[in-house]
Structure formats: C-alpha cells, structure tokens
C-alpha cells in the first residue's frame, strides 16, 4: 500500500509573526521555515504504518516555490521513500491545493492520503476535506488514532464533544491532530541518505489545474492589542478586584 503525505513548508511555529507596517503582508524574509507541524505528524504516522508492514511506500508532496527542495529532503531524511515537488511561486489556496493533490492522487493511486488538519500559516483547515470531496472518497479529519485493517481504517477523531470513532473504506483521506504521535528526529546519516532518494519535480502549470486566487487578501493587520493589566499582590486583592467587576 502506498501513502501520500501532504508536506507543506510554513513559517516555523516559534517565529513571532510581524505584520508589515503598510499592511501588505507579514514579514517572511529571513524567518525560519519548517515543515507544518501537523504534516510532520502525518509523515510520522505514514512511516509507522510502513514500519508495521502495512504500507510499502511513503511519498511526500509539496506545492511550493523552487527553494522547497531542502524541505522535501528533510521529509526524505525522516524516512519517506520519494518526494514530489509541484513547483509554483504563487501562494496556494486550499481549493487549488486540493485540486493539485487530486492530480497526484490520480497519478500515484495511494490507498491513504495523510494531511495535516491545518497549515499553521493560513490556518484554513480545508484542504483534506476538499480533496476527499473532489476524489469522492471518505475523510477522517482531526485524527488522534489510526488503525488500518485490510481495506478499511478505524480512526479516532478529536472533536469538540470528545472522541469520535469512524470506520472508513480505503482509499481515504486522513488529517492529523496533535496527539496522533510524536514525530521522530532526523538523524545525521539519514540526511546523507536522503540526498540520493528520488525527488520528482512537476511544474504547477503541467498539472492541468486552474490556478488563480479564489479569495483576494486586501489587507493585513496586527491583532487588536489587549492592554497590559495590573499585578495583584495576593489572593485577597485578586478577589476584591474581581468582585469590583462583578465577576465573582
């Protein structure tokens, strides 16, 4: 069984995002870029399914600019067998990402597509659901546990009410939540090995997917600031402050 993993490169989660003063975007020059944390979890899950003998091949895919190669090599160093780089200089919105991933799915015929539940740059939380819909296959989003048995997967989903279990027939799309697993660290020898693993590049235009922004972003603003409050010296002072506001 083949698993396709969506592996997006984003601004590292530790970076404090700054909005440009003219509101034209956020500062991305010179900031650290990393794999979307949820995609690292997706890759880790795919590798574990391979370790268990359930999957035979793990393919990581990125839609992004030419300099995403190093990022894909990281995915290969973590353990993926192959990488596919769909090269585009444009920011890819979820509907376009889903349409492009569908093209890769048609070509690769994976039994499972593992994506992150959300990319931590756009925080859209859409691509997996859209891909499953366009593909006409099941989705199990926000996965906290995945078990694959023959032609189906049982997925425990982290939902607002608690934990929901779904059984989906394969092929299917699964999107990862934070507690699915803890991604492994990349070891130095694996970085060397990754250099010789296959990395295929495809020009976005050659996929035959209509490009173009669906949503136009006209302005970026920093969030409203909360004014700094006061420090209280003890519980008594805290309680009287809250009482004064009618909160307790």
């Amino acid at each position: 069984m083949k698993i396709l993993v969506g592996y997006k490169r984003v601004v590292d989660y530790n970076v404090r995002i700054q909005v440009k003063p003219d509101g034209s975007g956020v500062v991305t020059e010179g900031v650290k870029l990393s794999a979307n944390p949820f995609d690292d979890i997706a890759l880790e899950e795919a590798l574990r399914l391979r370790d268990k003998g359930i999957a035979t091949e793990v393919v990581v895919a990125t839609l992004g600019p030419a300099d995403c190669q190093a990022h894909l090599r990281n995915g290969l160093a973590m353990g993926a067998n192959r990488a596919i780089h769909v090269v585009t200089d444009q920011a890819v919105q979820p509907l376009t990402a889903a349409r492009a991933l569908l093209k890769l799915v048609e070509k690769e015929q994976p039994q499972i597509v593992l994506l992150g539940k959300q990319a931590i740059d756009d925080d859209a939380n859409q691509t997996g659901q859209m891909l499953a819909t366009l593909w006409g296959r099941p989705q199990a989003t926000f996965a906290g546990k995945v078990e694959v048995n023959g032609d189906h997967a049982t997925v425990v989903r982290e939902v607002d009410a608690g934990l929901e279990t779904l059984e989906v027939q394969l092929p299917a799309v699964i999107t990862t939540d934070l507690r699915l697993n803890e991604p492994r660290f990349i070891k130095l020898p694996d970085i060397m090995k990754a250099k010789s693993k296959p990395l295929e590049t495809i020009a976005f235009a050659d996929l035959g997917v209509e490009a173009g922004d669906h949503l136009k972003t006209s302005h970026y603003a920093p969030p409203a600031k909360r004014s700094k409050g006061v420090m209280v010296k003890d519980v008594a002072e805290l309680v009287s402050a809250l009482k004064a506001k009618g909160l307790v």
Partner: protein
Amino acid sequence: MSKFLIVAEHLGGKLNSSTARCVSCAQAIAGAEIHVAVLSDAPEAVAAEAARIAGVAKVITVANAANAHPVAQVLAPQVAKLAAGYSHVFGPSTTFGKDLMPCVAALLGVAQVSDIMAVEGPHVFKRPIYAGNAIITVEAPSSMAVVGTVRTASWPAAGNGGAAAVEAASVDAALPSHTRFVSLQQGKSDRPDLQGASKVVSGGRALGSADAFKIIYSLADKMGAAVGASRAAVDAGYVPNELQVGQTGKIIAPELYVAIGISGAIQHLTGIKDAGTIVAINKDAEAPIFEIADFGLVGDLFQIVPELEQSL
C-alpha cells in the same frame, strides 16, 4: 439581497449555541434573509429550537436515517443541494463545521472563508491567520456563493423570540456508504460547556498530574465555571482532549478566564484573546501570560488555588 443558509450544529437532539452565533454573524449584513438547515434522523426538536432564534426567517429540515450522526461526506451533498439560490452558506468554526463546510465548498467549486471574525460587506470578511497574529481582510468572488465558517468566539449568540416557519425538505442526493460512524465517547460533565461558558478556569502543565488537576475542577465548581486546559496538560493526559484551549483546540470568549500554571504560548493565547477579563496565576513573573492578563498574581498555584477557592 443576501440570502443565508446556516447549517445547524446539534448533538443528542439539542441545538448547539454555535448556530445562534452564526445567525448574528449573518445579521451583520444588512437586510440578510436567514434560513437554518437541520439535517438529522429526527430533526423536529432541534428545528423547533432553531425556529426560536431571533432573526431566523425559515428552518429547513432534512430527515434521513443517514443523518443520525454528522458524517461530513454524507451531509455535504445534501447541503450542496440545499444551497441552490443562497448567496451565503455558513456553518460554525467548530469541529463539526470545520469538517463539513470545506466539503460543501468543494462541491460548489468555491473557496471557503474560514473563521470569519468580522463582516465588512457581503463578500468581504476579516479572519485570523498565523495563530491570530495577523488579521486579514479577504474578498470572496461575488459571482459565486460564499461558503464560510464563523469564528464562534467573535459573535454573541442571537437571542430567542423568533417564530420561524419550519419546512421539511427532501433532498435528492446520492449519499456515500463508505463511512461508518462507530461511536462517540463524550466527556460526561455537569459543568458548563467550555465554548459557551461565561467563566472558564484553565490549568496547564504545572499541575503535574491528573490527580493534582482536581484542584482546578474544584475551583471551577465553586465559581460555576467551565474547565479548560493548555495543550501540554492535555498531551500529558491530565484532562481529556476536548478541554484544550487555543489555536488548535477551542477558541473561547468567556467574560472571565483564569489561567493557572499556563505559560502563555502564542498558540494558547490565540484561544483566549477575546475573553473579557483574564486572570493569570503563575510562579514565574516573566511568564508571557502576564503580558495579556488583566490581573496577574505571581506565586505557587498549589498554595494560591485552595486559598482562592476558600475566599470565594
């Protein structure tokens, strides 16, 4: 004129308050006509609740045994069919809406506007990106329906007092059978619901164990508050996942939020920025949580929390 279809969220025959929050978001567009769709195996009770929300003009029910559980790929084709004639199709930005609405958008061939926090016009919205560290203004094409999810913490629940007509609809859509709902393991609690509560008491990694976390529950009960937690506390297994507050957990806007033994990572803060009053209790005076707290108290939580509970 804008015509809204809002997909109702419900569980166990009860309407979730997220639906009334979507209604107030829709009302931000002047003159909008608002309909609510209830898809269920037995929609009557939920539909009656939805019909009482002020501002709702019509409730549309779709009764089908296949709708007994909210399986996105089963609901989406039905919602997409119902969407004909509507300018906007909205759902809440809860796990229910996040799961479902992108499927509806994909079927309609349109982009989705996620986490709408403000409405600037029928096609122009504000939404957060980068864990709320930037707010963008986005414009959806006016030639197509707008599919969106409503950031529930940004909108008050529309009140009651409505008396909308309830209409049963039959939808002719092929429903897939590739997905089987197995179970829902719900946290059983008499406490207020985290997303709707006016007061929330949250604990972090500092609690150290599930057993020690009991002091948070105890304080919350004294205050009539819901209980929340940081990701670290959930990951460590002190509390179940549905209590996580933050970028990837629940985004909440209670009147009072008390953060106990939580450092204040950006991913956590993004979940509480809209709270009325934030109280932070932390032994580290430099903890980032104090930068956004209205009242900060430096000290050992194991001493402070019992003392606080006593003084209430």
